[in-house]
Structures are given as structure tokens and as C-alpha cells.
């Protein structure tokens, strides 16, 4: 089935050690999003790609970067994770139209030691 796949489901890293989360999609959607979701809170948009165009939210820390090498894949890089970065990270995709819903992956739960 067409879907949004996030790997790994659980990621543990050390304080300050760079970590990369991955997302792939078989929906051929042109927009891909990364959200951070902390416990019992709403997902918070970090950034998104509209095709190859990167769009960063104003309050996304510089610590967070993203890459989209092709339509299917998108990566979230956290250069120097702090304890406050422990969260669920959700990847979503959509067609580039406002009335189209976003399709979410299962998420990657990131823990910082």
C-alpha cells in the first residue's frame, strides 16, 4: 500500500551527538513536512519542502536541518541534540493543494541520554 514510512520507530542518541531521522513516501506527493510533537501536545511544524523548495518555520531552532534528495525521501538532521529535543517526530506528505489532507507516518520517538 502507498504510505509514509519513518525509520526508525525509536531512536536513542546521546546529548550533543548528531542524529538523522528518515522519511520515505510512495504517494508521489510533492510536499513533505516534519513536525515535532511533545507529550500531550499538538504537532509543531518545523519545516517543509514544496518540491525542492525548503521552507523553514521562523521559530525552528538552527539545530534542526532537513534534506530532500529526491521526491521520495526526506531527512531530519539534528546537529547537537539537547534534552529538550526529546519528542516524537512526525513526517507528513501532501499534494500541493490546501484542500488536500496530510498523510502521516508512524513517527520516530527520539530519546536523548
Amino acid at each position, binding site marked *: 500500500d502507498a504510505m509514509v514510512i519513518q525509520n526508525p520507530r525509536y531512536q536513542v542518541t546521546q546529548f550533543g551527538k548528531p542524529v538523522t531521522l528518515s522519511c520515505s513516501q510512495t504517494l508521489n506527493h510533492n510536499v513533505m513536512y516534519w513536525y515535532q510533537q511533545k507529550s*500531550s501536545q*499538538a504537532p509543531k511544524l518545523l519545516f517543509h519542502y514544496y518540491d525542492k523548495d525548503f521552507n523553514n*518555520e521562523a521559530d525552528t531552532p538552527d539545530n534542526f536541518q532537513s534534506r530532500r534528495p529526491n521526491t521520495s525521501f526526506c531527512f531530519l538532521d539534528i546537529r547537537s541534540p539537547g534534552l529538550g529535543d526529546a519528542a516524537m517526530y512526525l513526517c507528513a506528505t501532501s499534494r500541493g493543494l490546501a484542500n488536500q489532507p496530510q*498523510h502521516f507516518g508512524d513517527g520516530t520517538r527520539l530519546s536523548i541520554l
Partner: protein
Amino acid sequence: AQTVTQSQPEMSVQEAETVTLSCTYDTSESDYYLFWYKQPPSRQMILVIRQEAYKQQNATENRFSVNFQKAAKSFSLKISDSQLGDAAMYFCAYRSTNNNNDMRFGAGTRLTVKP
């Protein structure tokens, strides 16, 4: 900026009964889209229902329906004949037609279904 408010952090309903989850939003735009998403524990977020602001008719998807009051900026979700599988976190979301990335989520309502 648009804001989405879900005033009920938690709700519970008896199996087979009906429950309504509240959502209000603040916007100066006249055209936009509204969504309800469901996030079961440890599972992915999925779309439940969506509403176009220019449509007066309330959206319906099987047991799920909305009460969209544009003037009041209210978008409540009604779940009829509640089932155990409906237990989840429910998020209301607003999406602007002007900015493709502008998807704003409410804080969520945790729904418990009692057998």
C-alpha cells in the same frame, strides 16, 4: 496568525453513545479548510473528516460528522455510535488557502470510550 483551540483536554463516552468534541479557531481569512485528525496510542495520525469553509453543508463520513459554524468560527466533531476503536487523541486543524504550509493544530482532545 491563525490559532486553533480545543477546550476539552479529555472526554469520555459510553460505547454506542454519541460524543461531541469542540474546536474553535481564529482567522481573518474567508477561505480555508478544516480537518479533524485521529491519533490512536502509538499509531499514526489519520484523517477523520475535512470541511471546506466555502461549503455551508456540514461534512459527514459514516459515524463522524461536523457542525461547522463559520460566523462563530466553530468546528465541532460528532461521533455517533461510539466504538472502542474510536479511543484516541483527536486534533482539530486549520489550513489556509494562502499559504501551503500553514496547517495549525489544536492541542488535542483525548477521547476515552467506556465499554
